[in-house]
């Protein structure tokens, strides 16, 4: 598809508007804005949002930052709520109760807590049932809205308020769940992992495919959190770049079982580059904790290699 992303951004008005109350340096608002830019201007959208940072700071009665129709019900059921709205659309359209030549698209947004953890069942159900909707997880790797508690998306060794780096236990002791792969295993038409800021092209193109592929689609988008990760707010772009250049957060998509890595860094950086600017990993750089960095690096390498293998195997 021939297009100019700069023109797209300039021409299409933002459907997630200014005035919301998310933090400076937060990775989530650009995700919402860019994904909604992938909608055709003539299409209407129904957005279902899980409880979380994005919800509590974008729709405080009587103000809303959303220009499309929007619904929030609870923490764990954005996918189920969205699936109900989509079922209504299908039913009303089939019965001729709404205009036939107009299109509504269904998009859910949830943080990693509302997606990897408490909302996993609702998400799995909605994807398995084949609703024509996109579920977007903006993954900031912890329960940031309630004050940085560990989730199953939190990386190993991270210091959070429920996995504090103490003198006996050095942070979270478990590895991060691979939700993108869980969604691949649902055998839905489109699954992708992407990033909010720094590679807008990747996000925009994947959002467009997710929205305009018929059936369920899932996007896992890394959305750094300055408070939870402990990086300066002006470092958002850089932290995203380091996440992909260290292969901590690979960008890829899976269509009809075929893997495609959409970004391969020319030079894969050591994981320290990503870990070092973040306060949540500060303890890993203390003398005697070198094993933690080594272990982290090994896991990143193993997962990256697995992905390279999957790309090769599925495209043979």
């Amino acid at each position, binding site marked *: 598809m021939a297009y100019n992303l700069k023109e797209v951004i300039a021409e299409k008005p933002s459907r997630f508007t200014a005035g919301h109350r998310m933090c400076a340096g937060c990775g989530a608002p650009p995700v919402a804005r860019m994904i909604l830019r992938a909608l055709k201007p003539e299409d*209407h959208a*129904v957005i*279902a949002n899980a409880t979380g940072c994005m*919800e*509590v700071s974008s*729709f*405080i*009665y*009587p103000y*809303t930052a*959303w*220009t*499309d*129709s*929007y*619904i*929030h*019900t*609870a923490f*764990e*059921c954005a996918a*189920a*709520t*969205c*699936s*109900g*709205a*989509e*079922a*209504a*659309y*299908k*039913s*009303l359209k*089939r*019965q001729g*109760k*709404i205009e036939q030549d*107009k299109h*509504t698209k269904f998009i859910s947004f949830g943080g990693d807590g509302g997606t990897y953890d408490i909302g996993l*069942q*609702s998400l*799995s*159900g*909605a994807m*398995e*049932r084949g609703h024509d909707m996109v579920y977007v997880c903006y993954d900031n790797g912890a329960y940031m809205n309630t004050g940085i508690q560990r989730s199953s998306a939190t990386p190993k060794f991270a210091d959070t308020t429920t996995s504090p780096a103490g003198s006996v236990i050095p942070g979270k002791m478990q590895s991060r769940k691979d939700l993108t792969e869980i969604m691949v295993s649902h055998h839905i038409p489109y699954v992708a992992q992407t990033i909010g800021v720094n590679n807008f092209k990747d996000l925009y193109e994947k959002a467009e495919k997710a929205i305009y592929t018929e059936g369920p689609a899932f996007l896992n988008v890394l959305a750094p959190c300055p408070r939870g990760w402990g990086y300066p707010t002006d470092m958002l772009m850089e932290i995203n770049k380091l996440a992909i250049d260290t292969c901590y957060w690979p960008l890829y998509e899976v269509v009809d079982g075929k893997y495609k890595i959409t970004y391969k860094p020319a030079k894969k950086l050591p994981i320290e580059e990503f870990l070092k600017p973040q306060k949540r990993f500060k303890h890993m750089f203390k003398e005697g904790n070198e094993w933690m960095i080594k272990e982290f690096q090994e896991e990143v390498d193993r997962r990256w290699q697995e992905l390279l293998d999957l790309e090769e195997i599925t495209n043979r």
Partner: protein
Amino acid sequence: MSIRERLSGNEAAATAMKQINPDVVAAFPITPSTEIPQYFSTFVSNGTVDTEFVAVESEHSAMSACIGAEAAGARAMTATSANGLSLMWEMIYIASSLRLPIVMSLVNRAVSGPLNIHNDHSDAMGVRDSGWLMLFSENNQEAYDNLIMAHRIAEHKDVLLPLMICQDGFITSHSIENIELIEDENVKSFVGKYEPKHYLLNDKEPMAVGPMDLQAYLFEHKYQQAEAMKNAKKVILEVAKDFEKMTGRKYGLFEEYKLEDAEMAIVCMNSTAGTTKDVVDHLRQKGIKAGMLKVRVYRPFPAEEIAKALSNVKAVAVLDKSDSLNGAGGALFEDVTSGMYINGNTAKVVSYVYGIGGRDTTAKEIESVYHDLEDIIKSNKVDNPYRYLGLRKE
């Protein structure tokens, strides 16, 4: 001409749903309400209805999907029981706060634990303060009739609240009874079209639903829910009047059975009313002035009307098929007594918890309650106002 049929309570509910032809049904199997979505999915598979059936992975998602569907502008229905309703609990409150007129068939069953699949009212009692309208049904005919009336009540502009129609698990849900059905066309025109004022799918007027609602507004929004609940009483009676015109079957907020000249009365809900009527007839033959009041509309609670209807009796026994475990008496008992007190009715009142976990309640036991009431009238005092009926002695 009405249609004579023989249907179980679940079949009656599914038949009503077929005739209502909702846009979306989202449901999850749970005994004893499973048959309702089961029968209904057959209607969907055979193209008898226009409904989109969402076979969700849990009751939590069933209610979430109903909320999404109803907010989107569709008529959404579901059915559940016991733990299913417990799992929905969070969404039950959200449905009523968003003022979405979702209609549910609740086939009453004991809430765990321990696990028990049989009838009592502990499921319904767990959501009595959730802002849902709650109608109870004595038999299959009432379960059917109440469902046919449900949308007219719930969707009324002065109400806009979700509504649940209760019936007793197994006792009516799985018992086949004679029933009079209404012709499809008559149901269709009685229920009418659903035309929500605001809905998500209206691209001309996008809307936002379910805000963060803080100190400045939540109180007023809750007050609006309370007002809608009060408004419902009038609407329920208006709809019942229209229903009577169509079918000849008369419904009120409650049913009075031989209450006019009664000295003593039992207040109860659902199928127990059938047994009680039988006992009342039997006692009347013996010259005992027994009567009964069957609550149909539990939410909104017709406190003033019930107090008035019981104004001539000397003693009242309130039967609760659920124990509130509060050390003071059943939920219906507390509603009835407070209603009587504030409306100046000073008759003696006693609470009986009965039928827990499907324990059979016999006519003989009901009769013993009337004899207890005779003793209360004679002694003019209630020794123990919080009693159990049918509890094993050993």
